[in-house]
């Protein structure tokens, strides 16, 4: 029923979709980044924490699923990137680990470090996690320093297939300004989404007014760094793959990809315009609260398009600049046909999962968070 080539492309699509959803759900991080800047007093800070705190597990679970889907469908990426860019992933994980406990611990008696320490952890995760994830994804376009040698399995003394070249194990990514541009773009995007989400989720004139003041700055930063990154990438050489699987450098590769894949171009444009529409309408129309849905959907589309640009149309999605032929391609790094087929059948149940998530989300968010609720209920962080 499904051909191997189709399954490979399909799973890159699923990974792209999960990537898009993950960046959208990082509104949690963006909101937390503003605990101290938008929350001017204890009540406002509590409202921010409780607003993002009822969604953080979605972000966390999407991150886990993104990792799991990569492991299942592109295990050579999992092996090469996680084992190689070790420090980047460890740093990302540590910030998420602190975030996971901080909600529950922050206001509890006996928490040892005090309320503010846990809120600082949330804020640090809010800034650092999107920055690091964006920087790591930047290497999908700019490349990393690794080699892959499958023959090594036959060497009983040194059987490791993927070997990272730099002793910095991933931290060297910050030396390429293009990676940093994407990191900063994602960081400001998550802050933008955080503003839009809280404007939608919180019913408090004073706090929402503070958040609205932050929105233009966050959105401006996002637009600036995103445009800079896209320009840099479109003007750069990219990692192309020919029919025989040989990787070579091609000038303006990612720009060519955009033009040669009209569907991806459409997804990209819809994503960018939808994201900008949500931001602009929220900024310019007082009382408008639905911007998160426009910008959120736009984020999902735009990020999906970025992953598609990195992987489709004869492109090495995880390139090695030190050994071009070690670069990872969709067909060269994916799971077997059988595994992808099994996973594809499993993926058909995702709409069911989405349906109950939407149902539960709507049930919980039918009423916005108010100061009164925070003051009177016990069911809060």
């Amino acid at each position, binding site marked *: 029923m499904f051909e191997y080539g189709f399954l490979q492309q399909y799973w890159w699509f699923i990974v792209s979709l999960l990537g898009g959803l993950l960046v959208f759900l990082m509104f949690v991080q963006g909101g937390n980044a503003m605990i101290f800047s938008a929350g001017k007093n204890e009540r406002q800070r509590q409202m921010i924490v409780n607003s993002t705190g*009822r969604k953080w597990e979605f972000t966390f679970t999407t991150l886990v699923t993104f*990792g799991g889907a990569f492991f*299942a469908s592109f*295990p050579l990426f999992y*092996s090469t990137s996680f084992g190689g860019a070790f420090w980047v992933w460890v740093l990302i994980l540590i910030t998420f680990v602190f975030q996971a406990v901080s909600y529950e611990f922050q206001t509890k008696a006996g928490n040892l*470090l005090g309320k503010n320490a846990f809120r600082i952890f949330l804020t640090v995760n809010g800034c650092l996690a999107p920055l690091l994830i964006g920087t790591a994804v930047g290497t999908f376009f700019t490349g990393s320093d690794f080699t892959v040698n499958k023959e090594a399995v036959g060497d*009983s003394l040194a059987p490791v297939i993927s070997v990272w070249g730099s002793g910095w194990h991933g931290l060297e990514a910050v030396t390429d300004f293009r990676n940093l541009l994407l990191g900063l773009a994602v960081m400001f995007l998550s802050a933008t989404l955080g503003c839009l989400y809280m404007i939608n989720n919180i019913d408090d004139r004073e706090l929402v007014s503070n958040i609205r003041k932050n929105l233009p700055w966050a959105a401006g930063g996002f637009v600036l760094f995103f445009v800079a990154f896209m320009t840099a990438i479109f003007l750069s050489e990219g990692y192309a793959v020919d029919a025989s699987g040989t990787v070579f450098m091609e000038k303006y590769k990612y720009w060519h990809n955009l033009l040669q894949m009209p569907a991806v171009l459409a997804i990209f444009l819809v994503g960018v315009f939808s994201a900008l529409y949500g931001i602009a309408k929220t900024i310019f129309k007082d009382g408008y609260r639905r911007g998160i849905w426009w910008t959120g959907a736009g984020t999902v589309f735009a990020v999906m398009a970025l992953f598609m640009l990195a992987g489709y149309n004869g492109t090495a999605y995880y390139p090695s600049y030190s050994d071009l032929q070690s670069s990872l391609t969709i067909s060269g790094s994916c799971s077997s046909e059988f595994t992808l087929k099994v*996973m594809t059948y499993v993926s058909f149940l995702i709409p069911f999962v989405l349906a109950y998530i939407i149902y539960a989300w709507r049930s*919980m968010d039918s009423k916005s968070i108010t100061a009164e609720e925070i003051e009177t209920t016990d069911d809060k962080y």
Partner: protein
Amino acid sequence: MVDTALIGWSRAQFALTACYHWVFVPLTLGLAVIMAVMETLYVVKKDEFWKRTAKFWQKIFGINFAVGIATGIILEFEFGTNWSNYSWFVGDIFGAPLAIEGIFAFFMEATFVAVMFFGWNKVGRKFHLAATWLTGIGASISALWILVANGWMQHPVGMEFNPDTVRHEMVDFWAVVSNPVAISKFFHSVLSGWMTGSVFVIGISCWYLLKKREIRFAKASIRVASAVGIIGTLAVMFTGDSSALHVAKYQPMKLAAAEGLEDGGPRAPFSIVPGVEIPGMLSILATHDIDGFVPGINDLLDGYVAPDGTEVLSAEAKKERGDMALAAFKAYRENRETDPAAAAEAKKVLEENVEYFGYGYIDDKEELVPDVWLVYWPFRIMVGLGCFLLLLMILVLWFERKNRIEKMRWLQWVSLCSIPLVYMAGQAGWIVAEVGRQPWAIQDLLPVKAAVSSLSKGAVMTTFFIFVAVFTLFLVIEIRIMINAVRKGPETGAEDGTAAVEGAQAGDR
């Protein structure tokens, strides 16, 4: 050559994360059932007392839940960061359960846990109850998929080695999912979580009895927890028995190490402690036959002939077959594009010896023996404490039903002091399972030294100590917060206290 210190630190880091993870997860699994039963009683009886009781344990659940998630994400990514070769070599099989776990179980948990914590005043009573049950079910299904993956590591099935892609590839998903080792492991682990939750609830409730406060709450909690715990413990024993059969069949070295059995044979004795044995008991446990043959460590290293006439290869012979498999693999890779006939011949040799592939990485047969001390004693701790805790729960339930539990201060103290014991039993169980698996990451196919990432020892040491500090900090904070929450009490209002006991006796039984 792979640095042995790197392997050691990588193992230590994974063991550290897994052990800490298993501090938090069993309480999540057990409390999920207990509080769901309590909330069900609230919905059925429409008695606010049960709502407040369920909410108190949900508060404890919440404190514990987040740390379990935090340690869990580290575990998932450590497969990539610390065991990158493993991730490629078996990712085609191992990754699928992990992804399914994320898509179904984690999202179920994540969606409904928020409804459970914050939805009391936002959704209907029945929807809330469904959310509480679905949180617990989601947690249990999470355990299913990761234990399918773990069971596969203990007894790899449903795959073939592909020398072109240089990895094992799944060919039978159903064989992986229905792997008997995985099924036993799932029920054994999840139901041991029921034990943990039950002993925890009983212990805390007994503390209230010792303090002569929250009497109705404490007795009601004891009643629910001990019932759940007894069911769980009996099922743990049953699945433990089937696990023993599987270990004897698929991982005989683990069993020999767990028994400290140097030389095996029929009517093998079970060692209670060194020097105290029950004749024939190990044969019964391992084969369900008192005359069953159980190989010892020396038999497995030197080779032996099983009672049915099957010749079991010695370690040296397996090593030879492993070397042949590795050599054939190299020959195949060298010739596959230039000399098809030589490649076909090499592939044939590889296929004949692939079941011993991992032995090609073994240098010395002594590597094949896990640390006997570290398997023998945890096994006794696990079994001994399991039996003790079953007895304790039966006693607690008995005296509660006889309405004498309030006067049994010694039993209240024993119950309170037993909380750490149930954790020790759980940790000991995982030490038996995972240390007993050594030197293998995947039984017979991939030793840990060939599974590790190419990192510096210093990097892994650094993250080891970072994780020690972070996890210990979380544990200390969790314990402090729990102690505070328990001291504060369930706030069951005017219905608490001795006067409420009569109400409990009249209304709830």
